[in-house]
């Protein structure tokens, strides 16, 4: 058996890995609008968070309602290190990820003894605690007033100070994140994670240290969230605790579920759906309901979440995969009979 046979095991195609960079490269050229770029920068930042959460929710089967805390930890670490201490934003980014990782271990060890709803509640509680800390540590975080004047990122003197440049920076991170996660999923680690979701008792019996892998993926998802938070901080240059409250955690969860937690691409799809629909709502809600404010957003997404869970429990990504696989069907139908023939010959026609 050769390397290419692995592709039969992981029947995921490379098509997304080709399409995504092309879309990213082409988008600013086709639509040179800074408004659109802003939107897609946010999509990218959210997609990074959702990427980690998809690993946690879709592959390890663990619900988190506290990821806004890690998102915030990244944002504040970057802000404090680059502004208060004047160090390179890259150091802030890395320190943020390390802090988020350490906190994830500390929080994860006791909480992963819990299951299902209790785990969700515990992470929700954790998120609220961190949110309160952001508010109360005024000397460090600026409290409710927020943190001003976060500098932009530069790399070897190249300043990421325009929307266009930042757009590419964010999406490079998203792309690397997707490849990284995809690699993990298509490996021993990914199988171990999925086996936890498939059957925890059997997973344990084949020697998977469940606690260890849950914790590892929790740490990984916390680091992704922290990285996204750092990117947000350096982009918007002003952050306040409200950006990292419980509502944000819930929105992340909504994105993951709408996009589809069984596929890494779900993170991008979910984030894009959330941000784009949110923008549409902002435009059309005042027309439909002139006197209602922004709270209507959560009502809308709440309904959308329920509808998704009922009609597409695996989210949007399987639907899109179906469309993509239609293009590929032809190739597959030619290959399959040949493969069977080979196998029949090799085994003397035994294994049919």
């Amino acid at each position: 058996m050769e390397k290419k046979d692995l592709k039969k095991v992981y029947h995921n195609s490379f098509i997304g890995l080709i399409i995504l960079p092309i879309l990213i490269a082409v988008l600013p050229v086709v639509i040179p609008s800074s408004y659109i770029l802003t939107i897609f920068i946010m999509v990218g930042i959210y997609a990074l968070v959702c990427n980690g959460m998809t690993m946690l929710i879709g592959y390890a089967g663990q619900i988190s309602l506290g990821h806004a805390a890690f998102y915030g930890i990244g944002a504040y670490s970057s802000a404090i290190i680059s502004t208060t201490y004047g160090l390179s934003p890259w150091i802030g980014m890395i320190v943020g990820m390390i802090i988020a990782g350490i906190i994830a271990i500390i929080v994860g060890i006791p909480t992963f003894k819990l299951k299902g709803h209790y785990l969700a509640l515990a992470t929700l509680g954790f998120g609220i605690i961190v949110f309160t800390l952001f508010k109360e540590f005024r000397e460090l975080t600026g409290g409710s007033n927020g943190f001003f004047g976060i500098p932009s990122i530069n790399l070897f003197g190249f300043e990421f100070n325009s929307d266009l440049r930042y757009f590419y920076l964010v999406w490079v991170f998203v792309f690397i994140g997707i490849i990284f996660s995809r690699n993990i999923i298509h490996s021993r680690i990914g199988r171990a994670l999925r086996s936890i979701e498939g059957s925890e008792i059997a997973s344990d019996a084949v020697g998977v240290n469940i606690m260890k892998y849950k914790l590892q993926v929790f740490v990984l998802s916390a680091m992704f969230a922290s990285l996204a938070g750092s990117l947000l901080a350096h982009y918007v240059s002003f952050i306040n605790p409200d950006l990292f409250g419980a509502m944000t955690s819930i929105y992340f969860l909504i994105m993951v579920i709408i996009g589809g937690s069984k596929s890494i691409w779900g993170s991008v799809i979910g984030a894009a759906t959330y941000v784009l629909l949110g923008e549409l709502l902002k435009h059309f809600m005042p027309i439909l309901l002139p006197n209602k404010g922004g709270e209507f957003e959560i009502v809308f997404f709440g309904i959308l979440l329920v509808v998704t869970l009922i009609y597409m429990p695996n989210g949007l990504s399987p639907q899109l995969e179906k469309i993509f696989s239609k293009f590929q069907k032809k190739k597959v139908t030619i290959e399959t009979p040949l493969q069977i023939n080979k196998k029949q010959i090799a085994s003397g026609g035994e294994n049919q």
Partner: protein
Amino acid sequence: MSEAKTILKVENLTKQFGGVVAVSDVSFKVNKGEIFAVIGPNGAGKTTLFNMITGVLPASSGNVFFEDKNLTRKKPYQIAQAGITRTFQNLEVFSNMSVIENVMTGAHLTMKTNLLMAGLRLPMVTKEEVKIMETAMACLERVGIAGLAHELAITLPYGNQRLLEIARAAASDPKVILLDEPMAGLNPEESRQLVDVILKMREEGMTFIFVEHDMETVMSISDRIVVLDNGVKIGEGTPEEIYQNPKVVAAYLGDEEEEYVNA
């Protein structure tokens, strides 16, 4: 078996659930390369005993030794690391995976890839994946379902899922496989296929311990048997000895034996 070597030793194993003693002071030894059966009427404590050996339930007292290592109160994954894997009575295939992925997961312990290596997809990761895929395919061939490798595990018929569980349990190259009621729910054809697989793997040196209701299978394939009743060991020996053990006959075989005599 004069030169028999003990591979697993169960010593005074006891499990209490509150005031109820599910397994009481049970001891036995399993030899290497043996097919060893644990039988007993419903509620005799067979599954509890199994769960203690595999670490699913902590023992209240007593010890389990495996090749002189004390496995008592170890976690299931640690017991798997030591070289004991199992199958389940109520099939526990990974329903979200293909057949071959199930078996590849079974080979988890034989691999070394960690999170960072996997994420960066170092060349050795791919190498290991290819190797493990081959191992998995060989395991599937051994149980005779290699042709179904790329099907979704949950779509397999019941009997094949059993075989899949055995292939998965064998994939980490364990020293002992525990089978929890392997014949439950199988039709005669599937049972025969399963028995063939078990006998073939035993010839290759595998040790099996199994809990079973199907007396015909137990008597025909086991080398030695332990009989439990109400959590207490009431007999141990070869199938012939078990047939002749009056305690066993009284407690358990009574009706069944007549059936077999008549059959």
